[in-house]
């Protein structure tokens, strides 16, 4: 397998979230994090989740990944129920969650080493490719604690992209990045996504970012976490984040978002 082939890789997966609910119960209180969420994501679809802080987006990602068990409902991946986490559904967490005992390249190699069918040289090649993609080739051997906040997030991004999973669950992957690095990565991610056709679920607070990347944007509301509305984004790709159509779509979604919140307050 060459680097080129590797970049194409496996077929993407279909996801179905079937009326999932989740409560977090502690001795002090019970938080209703997700309330009866149903959601279908087609093979190779790019879906963005947008919603207020604490509405259960990260929790939903955890459940789809198999890291948390829902209290009600279930998640199906390719018509198989999700019971355990596994390398086909990879999560990029909200925190960078890098391993301090490995350097940058070690962290990026971690997932690759767990991927069968590759020779070590190829793995190294892939790892280097992605480190370069996020612009950290000079820091290949840096320790995790020596990186700036944004650099950590970029390493985590490279680590998530490198093993080319069938489903990628990304939790605010660009939150700590500046606008220019972001824009660069928007086009890279889109390019990679088009080549590899993977299923992506992407959490963001930036509506323009969501519109720029997604086939569909899903709006969450809080207390309990529920799906409020979904928007198809029929724009052609590659999209430019500064284009006017994109801004219009974003405006529409933002208005909807505000509506719910003010509505929420009124209720």
């Amino acid at each position, binding site marked *: 397998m060459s680097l080129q082939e590797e970049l194409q890789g496996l077929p993407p997966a279909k996801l179905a979230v079937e009326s999932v609910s989740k409560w977090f119960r502690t001795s002090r209180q019970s938080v209703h994090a997700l309330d009866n969420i149903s959601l279908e994501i087609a093979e190779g679809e790019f879906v963005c989740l947008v919603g207020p802080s604490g509405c259960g987006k990260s929790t939903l990602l*955890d459940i789809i990944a198999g*890291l948390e068990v829902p209290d009600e409902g279930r998640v199906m991946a390719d018509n198989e129920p999700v019971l355990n986490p596994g*390398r086909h559904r990879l*999560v990029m967490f909200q*925190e960078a*969650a890098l391993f301090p005992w490995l350097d940058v390249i070690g962290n990026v190699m971690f*997932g690759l080493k*767990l991927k069968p069918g590759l020779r070590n040289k190829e793995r190294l090649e892939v790892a280097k490719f992605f480190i370069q993609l996020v612009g950290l080739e000079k820091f290949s051997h840096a320790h995790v604690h020596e990186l700036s906040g944004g650099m950590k997030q970029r390493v985590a991004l490279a680590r998530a992209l490198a093993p080319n999973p069938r489903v990628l669950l990304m939790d605010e992957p660009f939150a700590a990045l500046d606008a220019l690095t972001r824009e660069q990565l928007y086009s890279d991610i889109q390019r990679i996504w088009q080549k590899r056709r993977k299923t992506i679920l992407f959490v963001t607070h930036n509506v323009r970012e969501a519109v720029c990347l997604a086939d569909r944007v899903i709006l969450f509301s809080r207390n309990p976490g529920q799906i409020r509305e979904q928007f198809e984004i029929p724009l052609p790709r590659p999209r430019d984040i500064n284009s006017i159509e994109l801004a219009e779509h974003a405006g529409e979604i933002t208005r909807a978002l505000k509506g719910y919140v003010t509505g929420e307050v009124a209720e």
Partner: protein
Amino acid sequence: MRRFLLATLFFVVLIAIWHFLVKAGVYSPVLLPSPQSVGEYLVGAARDGTLFQATGVTVRRLLVGYFIGIMIGLPLGLFTSASKFVEDTIGVLALGLQTLPSVCWIPLALLWFGQTESAMLFVVVMGTVWSVVIATDTGVRNIPPIFARAAKTMGSTGLHKWTKVILPASLPFLVSGMKQGWAFAWRSLMAAEIYVTILTGFGLGHLLHYGRELNAMEQVIGVMLVIITIGLLTDKILFSPVERFLHNRWGTGLR
């Protein structure tokens, strides 16, 4: 350099205080021998080879016993942290057994191994292994869960998860546990050498014990100094580099 000088000064002052305590004659010179007589003993024992031979014997036993203790304790600790059943059985046993003094193991050791080198190792291993089990268990339980989650979602399970994630993530704890385990190994070996006399080797524990038996306090204190020195050297050779590596990697220990 200044640090080194200061530290040296401190120890010189300690020895001076000792010297003057002896000079003042507050305590019987048999019980508190002078630094000189301890020095003479050490020089004498070093000359006739007793000291080096005993140190060699003891250190070899120590390393072997400690190594076996870790080879058994580490996986056991991983098991206790991984399975509720093992936790409720072996884990509970370990908690109880780690407080048992080494002397309790001597009859069993003799019963099973007779007066052999193995009996001695058995006592050392029993003195070390439970504390290693508990240190490992605690280390694993204190890992920030995000590491395990990240690893799982990249497909790390089973052996890979344990060796490539859980173990390195709990390293800071493990090293501190290993240090304590080392002290346990020493103390157990000393007890073993005192209680199990075998002819295959005459160790520092014997030297210490007979020093005490013969009221030769300068020998006792001399051997104590040797033990302290070995303890320090091990720390510098075995543990300090690992700790430095950890602090370097984790970015801790900077203050």
